[in-house]
Structure formats: C-alpha cells, structure tokens
C-alpha cells in the first residue's frame, strides 16, 4: 500500500501512531513491510490457503462472533443434500463437467429451492459474459423461502459445511502450501481475531493485485468469510476495501466501461437469454425474492428512459430493442484474440496502454496490428500508439511498419486537472473535481470527445430510414455546451445520472422513486441522490471539524449518501449497538425509527422484530434483522448457492502456472479457469505434467511508487523517470548464486510467450521460501516499462499468457513461472528462435495448457 497508495498509506501510519498493529503479507519486502509491525512473506498465488487457514483457526476454536453470524449471515441455512464438497472429490465440487471445464451448479442450491435459479441458468453463457460480475452490488437472485437451523448443528447447514471444508487448512498445511512459518501465521490469526468482536473491528484493505489471479474472486470471498465470521461487516472500522489501481476505478464499474454491465450493475442483455424486456428484468431478480433488487424493473425502465427519452414508451418496452445484445465473450482478452483472427475492425483506447499493461503483450500488439483503425487517446504517444513502427515485433521481423494494415489515430487527452467531473473512490464516495487549467493545444476531455463524436455520427445518420440507425438517432443527446471548445457540461451529465422526473425535470432524491411506468429517467440508479434538490452533492466540502465524525457533508456516497453499507449490522438483532464503543446505527424505540450518525441502511421505521407475512416479496419480505438488504435472502453469504461459476466455497488451487504440485487436492489449478487454448497462447507446464522443471521459478509483477501502471504517465515525466530509471528484476542473493546473476548486471527471463531482459537487483528483500519441503525462489519485476518514453525497457507483461478468473474475466498476471538466465536476451529474429527452443524443451509442439 505504501508502494502504490502512498497518500492513502498516511492513514495506516496514523493508525500505527495510535497503537494499531500493522501486519504486511506479501511475496516481497516492500516499503509497506518496512513500516509494518511484522512482515509475513508468502508464496504468490496461495492466499486462499493462507486465509482458509484463518477460517479454520476461527471455526476450530469457536472464535466466531456467534450472535452476529447466526443473525446476519447464511451460516444457519441448509444446503441441498445433493451438494458434494471439494474436500470429498479431491478438489472438485459436485456438478463438474470435464468436457466443458465448467460446473452445472444445480446441486449448490439451498435446500427447498426450485430446481434452478435464474442466476445459474446457463453457465456457459454466464462464463462467457462474466455473469457473476453484476453481483458486485448484490447477491444473485434466489427464492425467499429457505430452511434454517439456528443451532448451527445441522450437518448440511452452511456453518458445518464451512467447518468441514476448511478443516484441513491447518497451520502445518499453510506452512506447506504458502511457505509461511507457523509462528508468523499464528501471530496473524491471533491479531485478527483479538481485534474483532463486540468491542473491536478490523478492516481489510486489499489491492487489485488480489484480483489478478485465476481464483481472484475466491480470494476476496475468503476474506469476506473471515470478516463475516468475525462480525466485521456493516460496522465502523470494519469492511473490505479494494484499493484501486487508478482514481475512479470504482466509478468505472458503477457507470461501467465493461462489456457485460450497464450502469448500476444492470446486466447487459444477452441475445438468447433476454430476448424480451420482461425476460431481461426477470434475469435480475427472482419474482418472489426479498430485498431491494425486486425493484429492478423500475431501475431498468428508468435507464431506458434516460437513453431514449420520448422515444421510449410502455408500448415499445421503452426501446429495449435498441439495447445492444451480448452474444458471448466480448471481454478485452477475447477481443484481443479476435483481432489476431481478423474479426475486429476498429478499436478505441482511452488512457489504456495494453501493449505494456495487459497480459501477453505480444498478443496485444499483434492484435492491434490487424485492425482497420485504432484510436488512441492519451497524454503521450504510448507503446499502443507506436507498436507498429518500433515495437518488439518490428525488431523480430514479425511486423513491418509499411505493411502494418492498422491506421492509428492519436488524439491528445486532457488530464484530470484539465477537466471537471467526479471521482468515485473505494468507499463509494463521489467527489467533484473542478477544472484547474485549460487543456493545452488539441487536448480534450473524454466527455468532449464522446459528446462531439456522437453529435457528428448523428449528423451523418440524419435522415436515414434504416431501422438499425434509429437507436442512435433516438438517443437523448442534448447536453449543454460552453466555452470556446463547446465543452459539454459535466454537471448536466451528473444530473442525468442522478435521474429526474420526466414531466418536470426535477431531480429525484432517492432510487426508491424510480418508476417502471416511464415517468422517471435515471442514468445510474445507485447514484440517485447525488443531485438531490438540484444541488451537486458531490461538490460538498464541509470540513470534518464542522460536522459529525462520519462527515456526511463531504462529497456524496452511493447509495443515498450511506458511508457504511449494511450498517443495520452495526446493531444487534434487537437494534441495540453491539457495544457503545462501536455504536453506529441503532433502533430508537421512542421515535420508532433507526437512527445514527450515518444514513441507516434499512427501511427507516421497520421494527427490529418485524417478521414478514407469508408470501411477502421485495423489501416487505425483509425481516427486522435481515441486515443485508440487497441480498435475495437478506443474509450475507458465507456460502454462495448461486452466482459464481467456480464453486460455492473458496478452495486452494495452484496458479495456472506453478512449479508446485497442489498439496491439498489432486485438482491442480482452478478447474473452471478461463483458458484460451491456442498455439499463440501457450502456458508453461505445471506439475503433474512433464517438463514443468523447464520453468522452475515463480515470478511476480507489481508497481513502484515512482511509476504509474504501464508507465505512460511516468516514464514520460523526467522527474519521475529519473527516480527509477531502468527496468530491473529483483532476485534473492541465493537465486543470484544459483543462476550466476550479478548485481547491476543483465539477466533475461523466459516463458513460453517471450523473453525479456532487465538489470539485476540482488536484494534480501526477496527471500527464498520453503514450500512443501523444498526451497522455492520468487522473482519480482515492475511492469512499468515499454519501448517509449524517457526511460525504455522490456515489458514484464510480455512474459504472461492469457488465462483468466472465470467469474469476472480478469487475467492472472500476478503470478507465473519462468526461467532466468544471466546476460541479455537475443535480439532480432533470434529472440523467437530462443523462445521456440524453450517451447520444444517444454514439450509444446501443438501447445495448450493442462486439460484438467
């Protein structure tokens, strides 16, 4: 965190100054480790084993916050008796279909549920379209009626299943799998549990490197299980916070830049599953489910009204037919492969530099070299704008500048200080940003670019009588512009995102006002309230000293300015704070309402003892202690009966590339991982497959404080470039001795994709681990370098192949295997020959990864 979020890290230092224990678990000793109370080295890719060990420590010792767990989680819920745990099938859950590399999740359901729930209806298309991603703001739909055993004794209740599932994740197993000494592991377990309960809470902050694994979603699920068992969700000082890789990454999923989501986590319709408006809406919610997602029809209708205004009416299903449809996997990596295969004509890159920043850089560049046109909007000419004339494939002879068919348009972009708008950070807090200076020269904001692009496209289509053009021509595209450059008003966009009454134009103040009759238009329902009262609430800047400690008048948090989600859980089932020290939201019997320094995340006057009448659905079905109001059963999910494609419980699998045989199961890697098995995407062999010894080392990539992601904003800036002026690789003294590497000398790393070179940094910050009884070397590389900018070097991402988490299609590029050798890599065509030789040694003549 000190490396990548130094400004946020000041609060960790502040907490430490107040007596907090800071524990840092990381494959290498970083600037964070330097400040931590204790540092725990770990083998990259083994976090589920590590966290699972903590789950086991909690459950075996009966250290869970039992009252919280029974009341607010699904621990008591009974699971279908056909469910078979991965513990019993050597690492596979029931329902695995080897030929599809996928699960039929029917048996994972709660007992008494209908045969299949909507969320799990078609796993093939779920997998292709990263269906689980839309559950970011809520659980998958299920029917309301579930069986519970609040004594937690039933052998098929979630609590007992969980206990059995993690029973083998002992300190000895953690040491064997992760290379973490038992004493260090014990210290983490004790610190975490000691700091949780009625009187204390623990926050877990992770950085997005956690997501970049073939089991990334399950990493975070394991963390959620721990935080729920210890009662650390919905309470002050608790929670799970994702430290994003850039400003407003939270915002870019809320109002998404993802192929499978519409604003507010509404799913992008699928052509086969959602042919009609009703089927689309029913895909979001179960007809008789509990909770606020039962209003999905109102959110969906209002979004279509925001898009198509007067053209969207009840008679035409609010122009649902205008919405694009997914036909399969349109994710960034599938798209890259489609480019290579000639299936993509044009591509926009907006502040993204896949030639350096995405896994399998060679595939990225070969793909982009096979387009009709490419638009790059950035501050500088990045590698993704120049690959065709001086990229690595030009050097190897695979690309010839005068024959590269792609026409590249480079358009300079305005930086964040040169435009206005909001940032949404990890707490869901929107903060308005003023424009400080005019962008220089031809630089323009994204808003300017897309508004005027849309305007010009509509101009060109004007008068068209083709049906396919109607969706564009009928769009509401009427943002006011101002200034010499006709800059659209970002506040007008924010107002549309907030939503308004169609007849009066008055802003809505709550998403509960969204209607399914076309009377409201809402750009992103979860943001409703950010423009309440016609005021830009995100621009509020009341100092903390002039308001309560929760500071509700600084910026605006979704939903409804709530600073802590699910804060009903900060009170006990009767509505009393768990402790005065951790008091937050409580039931005020006299006023007959929930009260506290934050906006209660509950129906304001619903009594804690309220029980829903039979047959109730939606919010009315939520009982007075159903704290997790967006979940279909009102409970937080320790066990996920539907909505994930790789299992209802986290299970340790080895990374797709690992030198270690999975010590826990016969199943080596995530059986449902998304692999693209083709010759230009070979993965290094792992045990038990032969030739895994060709790539004996684990490599990990990451960031340096001095540079930003793919380097386009830092290698181009002299004051930053000089602070880390050259691509390097960190190795331990032991590995340096083993491979003959010399400090400040050259080394090159090889995988089945490519070979890259770097200067050697021999440092004790990297230390060998003992894994499964044998020494294991890890290597660390920054991924900031590429062929452009003031400092240039090989790209670490060129080493990776493409293999993804199946739930959300995020690449595994935080861990891989490689060889490392002294000296520089071959240049020119010899580089490909060199890699081919490794492919031959690895037995890859037709090449794919494991079939398991």
């Amino acid at each position, binding site marked *: 965190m*000190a490396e990548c979020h*130094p*400004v946020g*890290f*000041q609060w960790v*230092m502040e907490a430490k*100054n107040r007596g907090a224990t800071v524990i840092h678990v990381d494959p290498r*000793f970083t*600037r*964070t*480790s*330097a*400040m931590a109370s204790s540092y725990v080295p770990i083998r990259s890719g083994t976090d589920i084993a590590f966290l699972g060990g903590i789950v086991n420590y909690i459950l075996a010792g009966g250290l869970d916050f039992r009252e919280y767990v029974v009341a607010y989680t699904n621990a008591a819920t009974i699971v279908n008796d056909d469910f078979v745990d991965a513990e019993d099938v050597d690492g596979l859950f029931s329902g695995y279909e080897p030929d599809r590399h996928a699960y039929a999740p029917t048996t994972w359901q709660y007992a008494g549920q209908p045969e299949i729930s909507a969320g799990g209806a078609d796993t093939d298309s779920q997998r292709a379209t990263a269906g689980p991603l839309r559950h970011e703001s809520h659980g998958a739909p299920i029917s309301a009626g579930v069986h519970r055993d609040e004594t937690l004794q039933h052998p098929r209740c979630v609590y007992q299943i969980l206990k059995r599932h993690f029973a083998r994740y002992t300190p000895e197993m953690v040491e064997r799998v992760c290379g973490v000494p038992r004493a260090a592991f014990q210290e983490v377990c004790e610190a975490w549990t000691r700091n949780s309960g009625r009187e204390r809470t623990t926050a877990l902050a992770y950085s997005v490197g956690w997501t970049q694994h073939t089991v990334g979603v399950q990493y975070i699920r394991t963390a959620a299980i721990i935080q729920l068992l210890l009662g650390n969700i919905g309470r002050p000082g608790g929670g799970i916070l994702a430290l994003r890789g850039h400003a407003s990454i939270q915002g870019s999923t809320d109002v998404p830049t993802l192929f499978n989501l519409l604003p507010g986590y509404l799913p992008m319709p699928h052509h086969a599953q959602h042919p009609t408006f009703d089927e689309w809406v029913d895909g979001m919610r179960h007809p008789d489910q509990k909770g606020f997602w039962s209003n999905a029809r109102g959110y969906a209708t209002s979004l279509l009204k925001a898009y198509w205004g007067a053209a969207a009416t009840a008679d035409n299903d609010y122009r649902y037919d205008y919405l694009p449809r997914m036909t399969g996997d349109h994710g960034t990596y599938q798209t890259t492969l489609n480019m290579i295969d000639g299936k993509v004509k044009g591509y926009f890159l907006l502040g993204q530099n896949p030639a350096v920043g995405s896994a399998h850089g060679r595939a990225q560049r070969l793909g982009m070299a096979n387009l009709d046109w490419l638009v790059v909007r950035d501050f500088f000419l990045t590698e993704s704008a120049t690959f065709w004339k001086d990229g690595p494939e030009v050097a190897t002879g695979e690309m010839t500048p005068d024959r590269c068919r792609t026409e590249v348009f480079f358009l300079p972009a305005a930086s964040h200080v040169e435009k206005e708008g909001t940032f949404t950070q990890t707490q869901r807090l929107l903060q308005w940003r003023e424009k400080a200076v005019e962008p220089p020269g031809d630089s323009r904001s994204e808003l300017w670019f897309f508004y005027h692009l849309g305007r010009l496209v509509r101009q060109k289509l004007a008068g068209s009588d083709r049906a396919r053009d109607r969706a564009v021509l009928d769009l509401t595209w009427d943002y006011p512009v101002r200034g010499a450059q006709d800059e659209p008003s970002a506040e007008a966009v924010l107002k549309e995102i907030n939503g308004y009454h169609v007849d009066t134009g008055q802003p809505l103040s709550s998403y509960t006002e969204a209607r399914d009759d076309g009377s409201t238009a809402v750009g992103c329902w979860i943001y409703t309230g950010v423009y309440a009262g016609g005021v830009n609430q995100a621009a509020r800047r009341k100092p903390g000293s002039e308001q309560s400690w929760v500071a509700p008048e600084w910026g605006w948090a979704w939903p409804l300015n709530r600073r802590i989600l699910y804060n009903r859980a900060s009170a006990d089932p009767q509505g009393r704070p768990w402790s005065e020290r951790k008091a937050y939201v409580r039931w005020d019997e006299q006023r007959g309402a929930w009260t506290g320094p934050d906006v209660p995340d509950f129906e304001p006057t619903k009594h804690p003892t309220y029980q829903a009448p039979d047959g109730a659905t939606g919010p009315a079905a939520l009982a007075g202690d159903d704290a997790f109001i967006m979940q279909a059963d009102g409970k937080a999910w320790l066990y996920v009966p539907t909505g994930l494609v790789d299992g209802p419980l986290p299970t340790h699998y080895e990374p797709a590339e690992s030198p270690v045989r999975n010590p826990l199961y016969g199943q080596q890697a995530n059986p449902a991982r998304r692999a693209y098995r083709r010759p230009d995407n070979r993965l290094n062999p792992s045990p038990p497959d032969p030739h895994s010894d060709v790539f004996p080392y684990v490599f990990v990539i990451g960031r*340096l*404080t*001095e540079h930003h992601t793919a380097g386009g904003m830092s290698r181009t800036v*002299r*004051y*930053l*470039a*000089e*602070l*880390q*002026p*050259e691509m*390097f690789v960190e190795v331990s003294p032991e590995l340096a001795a083993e491979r003959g590497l010399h*400090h*400040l000398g050259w080394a090159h790393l090889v995988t089945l994709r490519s070979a890259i070179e770097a*200067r050697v*940094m021999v*440092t*004790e*910050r990297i*230390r060998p681990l003992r894994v499964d009884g044998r020494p294991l070397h890890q290597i660390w590389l920054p991924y900031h370098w590429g062929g452009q900018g*003031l*400092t240039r070097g090989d790209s670490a991402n060129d080493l990776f192949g493409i293999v993804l988490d199946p739930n959300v299609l995020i690449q595994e590029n935080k861990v891989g295997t490689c060889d490392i050798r002294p000296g520089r890599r071959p240049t020119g065509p010899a580089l490909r020959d060199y890699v081919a030789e490794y492919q031959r040694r690895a037995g890859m003549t037709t090449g794919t990864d494991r079939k398991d």
Partner: protein
Amino acid sequence: MDGTTSLSGPLDPAPDAGYPDPPPRMGFFTDTSVCIGCKACEVACKEWNEVPATGLDLLGTSFDNTGALTANSWRHVAFVEQRRPDFRWLMMSDVCKHCTHAACLDVCPTGALFRTEFGTVVIQEDICNGCGYCIPACPYGVVDQREGDGRAWKCTLCYDRVGVGKTPACAQACPTESIQFGPLDELRERAERRIERLHSDGVPEARLYGHDPGDGVGGDGAFFLLLDEPEVYGLPPDPVVTTRDLPRMWRRAGLAALTVVAAVAAAFAGCSSPGRRS
C-alpha cells in the same frame, strides 16, 4: 555576543545576521521513522524550484537512484537495507541542514549566500559567481556546483514560499508527515516527545541528529530523527563548522606571518655580502 561565538556555539542566527526583529527561526524536522520512501519530497522540490533533472542512472543502491544531495537534487531519499539479524529497510529524506553556523555563508566572497530573516541559508542565483568556495566549506557535502552552469545550488527551504506563509514544497507533499516544517523551537519540542514515545514503544535506537545547539555547527535548522548511527545514512557523525577555527587559525597565521617577516628581515639583516648588492 563577541566575534568568537558567532562562528560557533549556540546562537539565534537571524538577529546575529542583523535582523532587528525577525520572525521565529523556521526549519525542518525530518522524522525518518515514518518515512515511506515515496520520494514525493524530491519531486515536489524539483517541480517548485524548477531544478533540472539529474539523468537516468540506475545506481543499484536499493531504491535510491538519486545518490546524494547535489546541485540538481535538493532533497535526497536514502534507502538502507540492513540485516541485524532481522531484515530492516531504512529510508531517510536528507536536505540542507541550514546550520546555525553556516560555513558556506561565511566563505562566500560575493554575498550570494545570505542568512534570511527565518534563520535559513539561501544562495542567490543572480549573485553567485561560481567561485565554489562554499562547496568544500560545507561539513555535510550539501552545496554543489551545477555542471554547465558553474554556480552553486542547494535547498532554499523554499524561501519564496515561506515568505508568503506557505509550507516548503517537500513538507507539503510528504504524505506521512515525515518532513515537518515549523518554528524550530516547536519542532525541537515535538522531536523530544517523539523520541520519548519511540523509546517507550521499544525503539531504543531512535535518536536525534542535528538538534543540539551545542554541537559543532550550533545545531541545524533542519534536523532529523534517525534509527541508526548517522554514518549508516551517509551523514557525518560529528560535523563541525569548517570556519569554527578560522579566528584561531588567522591568529596563528598572523603570528606565523609575523614570524616569517621577522625571520626574513633577520635573514636580510644577517646577509652582508657586498657581492650581492646590485
């Protein structure tokens, strides 16, 4: 104050320099125990003061690619990797010490170096003639001549910012308050409390450096909390203002000169060979 103490020993430098009613002496307290090595201080300094880039040299000294305080680096973050026996990684943002007795200032023949009303030491770039006398005079090796320019450059403690009530750029940018700016008296008190706290928290190796007005430079305007011996960070253990002994040296030199004159005179007096007379 007599002429001897103004070159060594405790002193409030601004009144000594002739400011009749100066503001409090301002300085830096750099607490290395909370430095996260982000180098924001280095960048903020260069941005504000328009200091040239230093070039792209991978030094291999941990994450330090700046190397030293130079004409083109007025803040320098040192990174020290230690095994003792547990591994430890020390970080420390170094800067000009703005000595109470600043030899650089004493030796400057042009008046380019001057003592500000805040008690800090600043080089005026439009007066400096590049003679370089200040460079060997500095006991910390801070002052440096810029290549291709010839003039001497160093931290100004953001004289332009401080003059309008602003915090120096490095302290402003520091995310963890490792670099603290303020009246030196307050900083010294704060530092004493911090040391006590660290000692009671089981960090006995914490110590202050440059805080003592009785030291060889009369105390630094920019002082530090260190977690190891100064040498570990590349700091001199017992710096002495290089001009401290000048009066004594001049007295000696004067005596020596007199002696020489006397000896020469005696020699001439004793030489009576007529053949030597022209």
